[in-house]
């Protein structure tokens, strides 16, 4: 078959497109790094998952050890049922605890795992029983204001009842 310059240009064009795809997949994106890992799925129930999303990270000691596979609402227990896909390179004791955490004040929500001391390890279908819900900032502020308001009557100054604990207690 005789070659033409069109063949050369077509080949160069398609090769350039392929190189661009590789750059976008490997240098810009995260292909390859994620797919390689085998996973096993465990379940955890939380009273409140805050802003957790499907595909959100599962970390332990700050290292990515899995991803959130599924989030459902359990209508019998009125809790959130979260399925975690954990990297099968890592084994976790049966009494591992899971908590909903946030990286930084505005960062993403993730599931933090903390290992227990059990000899048996978690396997597919097991449930993490010790869980801690997300901290809701509004509740925290409410509790803080409430405890401050209870402190104020101890102060000698007759504070008006309408004033909330936000005012500094005088001594």
């Amino acid at each position, binding site marked *: 078959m005789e070659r033409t310059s069109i063949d050369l240009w077509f080949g160069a064009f398609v090769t350039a497109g392929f190189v*661009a795809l590789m750059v976008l997949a490997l240098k*810009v994106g995260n292909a390859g790094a994620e797919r390689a890992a085998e996973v096993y799925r465990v379940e955890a129930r939380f009273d409140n998952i805050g802003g957790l999303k499907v595909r959100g990270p599962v970390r332990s000691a700050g290292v990515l050890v899995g991803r959130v596979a599924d989030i459902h609402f359990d209508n019998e227990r009125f809790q959130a049922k979260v399925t975690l896909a954990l990297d099968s390179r890592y084994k976790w004791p049966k009494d591992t605890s899971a908590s909903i955490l946030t990286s930084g004040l505005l960062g993403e929500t993730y599931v933090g795992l903390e290992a227990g001391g059990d000899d048996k390890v978690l396997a597919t279908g097991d449930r993490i029983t010790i869980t801690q819900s997300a901290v809701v900032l509004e509740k925290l502020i409410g509790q803080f204001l409430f405890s401050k308001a209870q402190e104020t009557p101890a102060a000698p100054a007759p504070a008006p009842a309408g004033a909330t604990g936000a005012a500094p207690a005088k001594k």
Partner: protein
Amino acid sequence: MLDIRRPLGRLGHNVIDGVWRAGTMARFLWLVLASSGTSFSRFRLVMREVYFSGVLSLIIIIVSGLFVGMVLGLQGYETLQKYGATESIGVLVALSLVRELGPVVAALLFASRAGSAITAEIGLMKTTEQLTAMDMMAVSPMARVIAPRFWAGIISMPILSLLFSAMGVFGGYIVGVVMIGVDNGAFWSQMQAAVDFRYDVVRGIVKSFVFGIAVTIIATFEGYDAPPTAEGVSGATTRTVVTSALMILALDLVLTAFMLRSED
């Protein structure tokens, strides 16, 4: 009383004409698909058109991609600086390019660089009765002229959009890391953490694929449908660019809405 009937009549005429054209275009698309066999048995025809509409668009795509990426880097830095999150500049540049700007801007450039050329070429072939001559020689102009250009556009468009995105990220890198001095490691690692291959890159490719179909079918149809006069061909070329641009942006809205909804 009599005067109001004239603009109303023209409006109605335009609406009916638009619907009519849409129907004709659907039949045209079907005809192109039905006579695509030659394009694959004589693939050289398609390769030649890929050269004309894809390879020759490379310069404008690469240069525009570089500039768009650099502008995104500069603008993003201005805003991110206020929040002390300048390392996220890589995320901003890469996500906006891969998800939106790459497919859309590349398709707009493709429509004005290659789409208009396709329309003018086919329109002129029709005006000079080359298409009729082919028909007389029992060579189907659909299979010989239209279908190769259609498939060449579908092949070229995703490649051009990928190149646009890659060059844009490189432009963002030049501005962010080389010129402004954002940390190199954080630039790439945050980008890799945020850009997902399946959810961002592949969806961008799907978008550009759809845009490629839309632009080439509009360009070939307008050329094939052009009135055989100088004025008709020029009008058809204009319509190609305008209709393609509107179609690209409207389709982008629809596709994005679908893709974001299916994410949760």
